[in-house]
């Protein structure tokens, strides 16, 4: 799965993007956030409040309850501040 990070999520994790193999039990966006948090201090700092993290699957906004597709570009980022 391709993961891509923006703004302070990117800064705290210390990566712009990465490709990961997800365990079978990671089925939804919420599962993914929870699994990532366990990958190290940088991830837990970035995702300490999962409720504020916004997610896009293949460049479309998605809820935390959305099931992950088999292959996709999953983006994680803070609430947007454009405009």
């Amino acid at each position, binding site marked *: 799965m391709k993961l891509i990070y923006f703004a302070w999520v990117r800064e705290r994790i210390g990566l712009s993007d990465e490709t990961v193999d997800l365990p079978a039990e990671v089925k939804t966006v919420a599962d993914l956030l929870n699994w990532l948090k366990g990958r190290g201090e940088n991830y837990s700092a970035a995702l300490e409040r999962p409720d504020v993290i916004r997610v896009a699957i293949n460049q479309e906004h998605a809820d935390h309850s959305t099931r992950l597709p088999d292959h996709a570009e999953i983006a994680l980022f803070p*609430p947007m*501040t*454009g*405009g």
Partner: protein
Amino acid sequence: MSPTCDPLVRVQADDFDPATETRRLTAGRRDVGAVVSFTGLCRDENGRLEALELEHYPGMAEAEIARIANEATGRWPLTGLTVIHRFGKIAPGENIVLVVAASSHRRAAFDAADFLMDFLKSRAPFWKKEHVAGSTEAGWVEAKDSDLEDLKRWEG
């Protein structure tokens, strides 16, 4: 019944010219009665801001703005709609975002531009970082709860 139009969406580092974009929607036409343009500029917070840095999600930024723009052309009878959003470093006084909505009818043009800005703010994948004079720390701008409140204006 409603005039359909194909929105023009651009995400770019370069500045834009609101006059050129407005002319593009009116030149040689006789059916445009109203043009509303919104320009969002980089505003200086008490003389301490050196620049804003706008990060964006390439690809999704264009796609998401196009989705919002197409929603607007479905809701209001527009003769033209242009949305341009910049990214990169932007100094105080410079342009950030432009929405130009043209219609036969005044209210449609106003409402469409207003709607676009409300949705851009909280759905288009851009993030602002503030570079402050005399400081090496740059801080991310926090989203406001009022931005989500603004979306509710368009429900139902």
